[in-house]
């Protein structure tokens, strides 16, 4: 009897001290979790009328803390999107017991209730955290939360975004995108989730990827998804780690272009004028890579190089980066020319150097191809 009382008191003390909560919060596969999603507004089948006002209400953190809820699994795409040097952290939560459905290696359907968060920090300070939420079967909802000066909470940014929240280079400031801008990138053919795909999560990571991040302990990869049965796919579909074929520079350049340009420049884009094949599939063949390169070299753009004859500017001119619209527009941060057109105010020099060197290489490839014919 006495032993029973002691055990009960001990249990109460542990609960009060938080030890029990800590133990209960150890990472477990989402498939075996109890369903605990914070109540959020919105009737089923229709996008919610209102978003949580605070980041702390979205389920990213354990209640009353800035400790990430362990049910939210950290990940890191091998080819990060350039955002003016922002340090990023990313998490995903799949609803308990649910799985991603991979109809093929590149067409992933996320279950209703899926949430992803991406935190942006400049100079060691959190600036904004974006949330991508499949609230209903009707589609995805986009939100961004702007951090306060004390770094204790982030509040929902207006639908029109919030301009100039922090300086990222002399005279250049980062702006929180509008929700329309979110849609511009995330609703342009293919999955609405851009950085969480077979190629991006491949365990065979590209060491030459500009601004590539090292995998941290606990981060999930494609292997984790398969091993923990968090993805439904045909047997053997992901038996091999996805990798862009070709030499190291081709691999890194096409990986970068895929992550930074392919969300708009893909064959399924809603804008006919930008359907360039820059989005790389998980398992491209060497012949497909050649086809992509040849296709880019054969295309002219509606955008014209300064002082050129209208309609004659190539997307990619092997051996001549300075005459390749792709590079010239990557270098620009002027309104009518810059690429990508939103989300960045400072050019990505590492990537420009990589893509320029790759285009230089392509000249040699062209000559070899030409000699072989």
């Amino acid at each position, binding site marked *: 009897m006495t032993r029973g009382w002691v055990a009960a008191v001990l249990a109460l003390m542990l609960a009060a001290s938080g030890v029990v909560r800590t133990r209960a919060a150890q990472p477990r596969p989402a498939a075996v979790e109890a369903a605990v999603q914070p109540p959020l507004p919105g009737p089923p089948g229709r996008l919610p009328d209102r978003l949580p006002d605070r980041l702390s209400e979205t389920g990213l953190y354990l209640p009353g803390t800035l400790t990430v809820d362990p049910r939210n699994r950290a990940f890191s795409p091998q080819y990060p999107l350039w955002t003016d*040097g922002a340090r990023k952290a990313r998490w995903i939560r799949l609803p308990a017991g649910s799985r991603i459905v991979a109809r093929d290696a590149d067409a992933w359907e996320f279950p209703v209730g899926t949430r992803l968060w991406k935190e942006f920090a400049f100079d060691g300070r959190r600036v904004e955290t974006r949330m991508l939420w499949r609230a209903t079967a009707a589609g995805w909802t986009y939100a961004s939360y702007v951090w306060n000066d004390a770094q204790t909470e982030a509040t929902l940014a207006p639908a029109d975004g919030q301009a100039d929240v922090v300086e990222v*280079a002399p005279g250049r400031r980062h702006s929180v995108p509008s929700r329309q801008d979110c849609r511009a990138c995330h609703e342009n053919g293919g999955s609405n989730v851009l950085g969480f795909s077979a190629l991006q999560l491949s365990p065979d990571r590209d060491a030459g990827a500009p601004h590539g991040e090292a995998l941290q302990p606990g981060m999930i990869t494609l292997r984790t998804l398969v091993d923990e049965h968090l993805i439904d796919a045909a047997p053997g579909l992901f038996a091999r780690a996805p990798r862009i074929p070709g030499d190291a520079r081709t691999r890194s350049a096409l990986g970068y272009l895929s992550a930074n340009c392919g969300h*708009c420049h893909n064959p399924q884009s809603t*804008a006919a004028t*930008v359907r360039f094949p820059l989005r790389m599939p998980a398992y491209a063949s060497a012949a497909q890579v050649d086809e992509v390169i040849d296709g880019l070299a054969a295309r002219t753009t509606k955008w014209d190089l*300064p002082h050129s004859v209208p309609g004659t500017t190539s997307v990619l001119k092997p051996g001549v980066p300075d005459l390749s619209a792709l590079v010239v527009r990557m270098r620009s941060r002027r309104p009518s*020319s810059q690429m990508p057109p*939103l989300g960045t105010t400072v*050019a990505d020099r590492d990537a420009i150097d990589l893509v320029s060197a790759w285009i230089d290489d392509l000249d040699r490839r062209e000559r070899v191809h030409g000699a072989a014919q």
Partner: protein
Amino acid sequence: MPRRVLSILGFTMIPALISSVTVVANNNARPAASAAAPATDAVARGKYLVQFGSCNDCHTPFRLGPKGPEPDMARQLSGHPSALVLPPPPALNGAWVWAGAGTNTAFAGPWGISYTANLTPDKETGLGNWTEEQFLMALRSGRHEGKGRPILPPMPWKFVGSLTDDDLKAVFAYLRSIPAVSNKVPSPVDPPEDTKAEAKQ
């Protein structure tokens, strides 16, 4: 009147005028005692909104008529004429920060040089290949085709974009109904590039 005052008047009155026009257009979405909307179908309503929104003032090139500049309706809403190659804009400084061409289809300012778009249904040079969704997205986001480069000044996209979905669809329906004009408007010209900016790491 000092130059500064003129400039401020110009900058405040044009958006205010456009804004008030848009508000009038919006109010007419509901029955009004003084000015019932003439629309009986989407195309008619779109025509009504385009007229009230003064879209012709910039998207239809002006020609010099007997009483001064007037829209050349033979080229209705076809944007800056491709054949009209303009000399470099005048130097702008101080309170005079932007300039417009005599056709009212080309404008120079801190954003570079912008040319008004061909809004006719021509497939190669106008809106012929645009979808209704793209049109709405463009006017809601202020981005070309709803995704690309910013729509440049002086296009008052925020005011037009404040119309209801139905009104924007009506405008699009009307623009699809007017004669197609083949006219490739030049690409905008950027201001000089500042290539020195480096991201903090």
